[in-house]
């Protein structure tokens, strides 16, 4: 039997019970639609977040010592273990252009222009941590000077917004008050780097000298030195990142002060921007897979609907199968007819499900304010899945039809 005639006969069978076919197709539409919605949302979310994180990729290697096996973000649980000597050693590694320490100075409040606002901590770092492009006004602070850099949120904390040249007073946790001059304001897009997290909070940056006071005696030299919980190693270029990462880890494990200072069940984390992006990506795809998995369940339910309808259809048309066999239909012909009917239902469902899914994703994206990214390959996959669902759901009923005994079938009432 030629394919065109199979299509005609199967199509006629579908049309002869429109409502039943429509409801069966609806099951697949919902299933495919749900999958498309969640996959599209997942892809959009991923693109959105990676756009935020990965957009400003730098040749940086982030180093900290955290509890072993902890899978938190950069700097999670970091202990101050990196001494000034470690920083010098790291600076000496090949391919490294700068090493930026970063520490926390506990504070109680910050005052500017007579207005005092609570501030739990300020960040002590070196001028190299700033990119000149990230300044809205002013310049980085200088090491050894009483100068501060504020990010946009921090500048807006005060009644009269802080500007370059203002005097601020840091009230340290020890109760001591220290005056400093605002020399730079970061623009809105400049974040605090991976160690500060993704959400923008008020950040006050100060030079490590003279503000950072956390010190220890270097186990190697015995000198009292500043010790930092997190370090950013800036490679010369992107090509040097991988090498720098390896060298940094080798140094830390081998001969660093940090190796001697680190608690027993702590481990060094040495991550590049790419590692962080990969980690977020993995997290997001796990989430997407999970939600898609739930949607796939509804697709399975839809395919059970097809199988159910096909079984009923085969039973109803037993006599027709007998007639076809009596006039020379081969098993293969009968199998083909019923399988094609199931596949058509599956494909119709998938084809209709794709726009429904897109619509669903669009509505959800509007609601949460995401810009949509369409995973085009998934639309092809959806149609493929519809085909597959049809075959899987139709195979047993069609096989049942094909092996019907024509004698019994012709007698069937």
């Amino acid at each position: 039997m030629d394919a065109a005639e199979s299509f005609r006969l199967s199509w006629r069978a579908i049309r002869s019970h429109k409502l039943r076919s429509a409801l069966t197709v609806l099951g697949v539409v919902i299933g495919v639609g749900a999958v498309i919605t969640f996959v599209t949302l997942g892809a959009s979310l991923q693109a959105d977040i990676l756009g935020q994180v990965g957009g400003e990729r730098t040749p940086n290697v982030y180093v900290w010592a955290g509890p072993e096996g902890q899978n938190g973000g950069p700097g999670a649980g970091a202990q101050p273990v990196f001494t000034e000597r470690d920083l010098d050693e790291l600076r000496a590694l090949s391919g490294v252009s700068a090493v930026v320490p970063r520490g926390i100075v506990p504070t109680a409040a910050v005052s500017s222009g007579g207005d005092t606002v609570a501030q739990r901590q300020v960040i002590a770092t070196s001028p190299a941590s700033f990119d000149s492009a990230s300044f809205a006004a002013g310049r980085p602070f200088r090491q050894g000077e009483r100068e501060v850099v504020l990010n946009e949120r921090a500048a807006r904390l005060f009644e009269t917004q802080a500007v370059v040249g203002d005097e601020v007073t840091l009230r340290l946790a020890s109760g001591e008050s220290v005056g400093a001059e605002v020399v730079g304001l970061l623009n809105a897009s400049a974040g605090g780097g991976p160690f500060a997290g993704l959400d923008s909070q008020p950040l006050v940056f100060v030079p490590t000298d003279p503000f950072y006071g956390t010190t220890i005696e270097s186990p190697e030299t015995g000198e009292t030195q500043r010790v930092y919980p997190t370090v950013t190693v800036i490679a010369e270029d992107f090509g040097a990142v991988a090498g720098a990462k390896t060298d940094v880890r080798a140094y830390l494990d081998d001969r660093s002060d940090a190796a001697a200072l680190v608690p027993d069940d702590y481990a060094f984390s040495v991550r590049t921007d790419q590692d962080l992006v990969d980690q977020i990506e993995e997290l997001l795809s796990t989430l997407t897979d999970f939600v898609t998995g739930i949607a796939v369940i509804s697709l399975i339910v839809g395919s059970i609907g097809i199988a159910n309808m096909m079984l009923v259809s085969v039973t109803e048309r037993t006599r027709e199968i007998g007639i076809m066999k009596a006039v020379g239909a081969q098993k293969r012909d009968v199998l083909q007819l019923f399988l094609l009917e199931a596949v058509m239902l599956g494909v119709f469902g998938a084809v209709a499900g794709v726009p429904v899914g897109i619509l669903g994703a669009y509505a959800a994206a509007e609601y949460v304010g995401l810009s949509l990214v369409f995973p085009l390959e998934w639309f092809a996959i959806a149609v493929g899945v519809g085909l597959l669902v049809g075959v899987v759901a139709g195979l047993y009923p069609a096989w049942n039809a094909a092996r019907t005994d024509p004698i019994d079938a012709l007698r069937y009432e």
Partner: protein
Amino acid sequence: MAASHSDSAPDVGPDREDAVSLRDVRKTYYLGEPVHALDGVTLSIPRGSYTAVMGPSGSGKSTLLNLIGCLDTASEGEVFVNGTEVSELSDRDRTRVRGDEIGFVFQTFNLMPKLTAAENVALPLVFQGVSRSDRRDRAEAVLAEVGLGDRTDHRPNELSGGQRQRVAIARALVTDPAIILADEPTGNLDQETGEQIMGLFQRLHDEGHTVLMVTHERPIAEHAERVIHVLDGTIERVEEIESPRRVETDV
């Protein structure tokens, strides 16, 4: 000496002139204990003949029809359809022989309810791989032959019983089969319509078609040249009808 081995020689094989022949055919069903539906039937249906099969229900006439129609296989013995031994054929080849050589006409018409008259008639050609336009042409020609040239696009539920049976006969004829098997073709029709259908069979016979008809009505059987009486799975007797009943008003 030479004559002694002629008993087993194949010269008693199927006559080339026979549309169908059966040799010592047995059909046994095992329903707890063996039931012999057919118990050693030898029979030949010559080409162009008109034969009726009569017998009470359970006599084995349906089994006989199923075997000749390649719907069932014999437990023992040989069944030749147009010179081909079908008992040993694969399901696939037997289906092909059925499609090519057998035309069925049933008591309950057995038309496809969703297909038009022309599509019903063309259905056997679909499975033979005949092209769509050829199918249409041949179906229309055969429908015209059975007097339904103006009903080609009607569905079965838009046709009368007699018209439905004509469509079924047209479907049986469309492949130009070796034999037309009719199972109680007038059983669901009133007297007058039945007569018209018998007139159609008579005309087909006159035109040279081979017809085998199962019936339990004596007056219907008398339209044939021969009546085979089946009883308890064996052929009780073969009755030659001196002057078969003719239908006066032809279609």
